[in-house]
């Protein structure tokens, strides 16, 4: 069993098995779009919506999906939902759609969505699949919000610039103000290399908190060793 299969087969939770910070899945939209918090929120919510809908669809159709061609099925299902979402965003949120660009159609091949379909939705009831997708989606939104607010704070010193983009039927694209950066150092945070480095620092911070928590719990109570009684031949 490879490392990828091991990590993704664990139970999903927004903190201990976050799809972005722990499993490192779906990184490309996270890194490219997280320049401002508004963009990050828009992409996170869209991805979570596609994840919920396609999980429920796959688990309802699981008896009909051919085992051999299942990846084609997953991709076709996610691509259908993404096409619908793409048209809806173009209709109601045109300025936001233009900001997100190519990464809206690319939701359909986000590894975080595909792996949850393969690992969980294909062999569980739709309620369980819905819960799993909700946990994964909230983990994805948490990670992208953390990274994008960090990057926006460093590069402009403020948060939620152009928040009007999140309102429906907001069509006045000319209201978007040009963000002015203070210096060369802070401008670096809006580039792609800085996204990699800041995400690495975020993960290191999360590991630090986890280590502290583990140390505290280990000091207070020691778990009793579990023994398994085995009868018969192995």
């Amino acid at each position, binding site marked *: 069993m*490879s*490392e*990828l*299969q091991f990590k993704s087969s664990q139970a999903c939770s927004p903190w201990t098995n976050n799809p972005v*910070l*722990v499993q*490192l*899945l*779906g*990184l*490309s939209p996270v*890194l*490219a779009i997280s320049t401002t918090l508004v963009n990050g929120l828009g992409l996170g919510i869209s991805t979570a919506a596609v994840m919920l809908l396609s999980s429920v669809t796959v688990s309802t159709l699981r008896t009909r999906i051919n085992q*051999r*061609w299942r*990846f*084609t099925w*997953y*991709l*076709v299902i*996610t*691509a*259908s939902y*993404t*096409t619908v979402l*793409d*048209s809806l965003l173009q209709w109601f949120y045109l300025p936001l759609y233009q900001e997100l660009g*190519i990464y809206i*159609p*690319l939701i*359909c*091949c*986000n*590894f*975080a969505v*595909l*792996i949850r379909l*393969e690992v969980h939705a294909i062999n569980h009831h739709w309620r369980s699949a819905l819960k799993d997708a909700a946990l994964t989606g909230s983990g994805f939104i948490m990670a992208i919000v953390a990274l994008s607010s960090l990057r926006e704070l460093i590069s402009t010193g403020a948060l939620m610039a152009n928040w009007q983009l999140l309102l429906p039927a907001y069509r006045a694209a000319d209201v978007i103000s040009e963000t002015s950066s203070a210096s060369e150092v802070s401008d670096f945070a809006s*580039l*792609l*290399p*800085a*996204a*990699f*480095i800041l*995400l*690495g*620092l975020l*993960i*290191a*911070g999360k*590991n*630090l908190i986890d*280590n502290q928590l583990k140390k505290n719990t280990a000091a207070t109570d020691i778990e009793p060793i579990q023994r398994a009684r085995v009868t018969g031949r192995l």
Partner: protein
Amino acid sequence: MTQIFSIIVAAALVNNMVLIQSLGVSSLFAYSDRLRNAIELALVSFLVIFLASAINLMLYRGLLTPLGLEYLALLCFVGVSSILTLLVLHSLEKKFPLSMRRQRLAFYLIAGNSSIIGLSLLNTASARSVVDCLAYSFGAAMGFALVLLAFTALRQRLDGADVPAPFRGAAIQLISAGIAAMCFLGFAGLV
């Protein structure tokens, strides 16, 4: 001829898929961290990315645009890439059953590699001629395989390095990917 060569170099290095345009980054981390497995994955990905984007380009220019069905482009691209991946994998499974069994999930995930779909979408938006688009796809696929191999070798080195405890694993890998991306920014102006 020189123009095609310069397009290939530009696609592979200056506009590198992974480190400049941020397409298919998660495949760097999702795949195995052994160089031997990575060579197999890089070869298959190169083949699938180039072939799928070439077929998608023909389909879009020859079938979807004349019929006015541009909104179906995404579904069409996804279908082509996943069917092509499965066909390549089935022929691989007959020849090399062992390497197939070792990393089945990673091989299947090539179908959902966002660089295939991203490259096809970039090709539909560009106004280049068909030959230039094919050269661009070839270069981009080469750049992807190159970065995949280089990064896996780097991860193998990082495994043995003495890194502070919170940075072990994913964090140091992302930071070194950031430094590599900074280096690739230096290729701007090469062509």
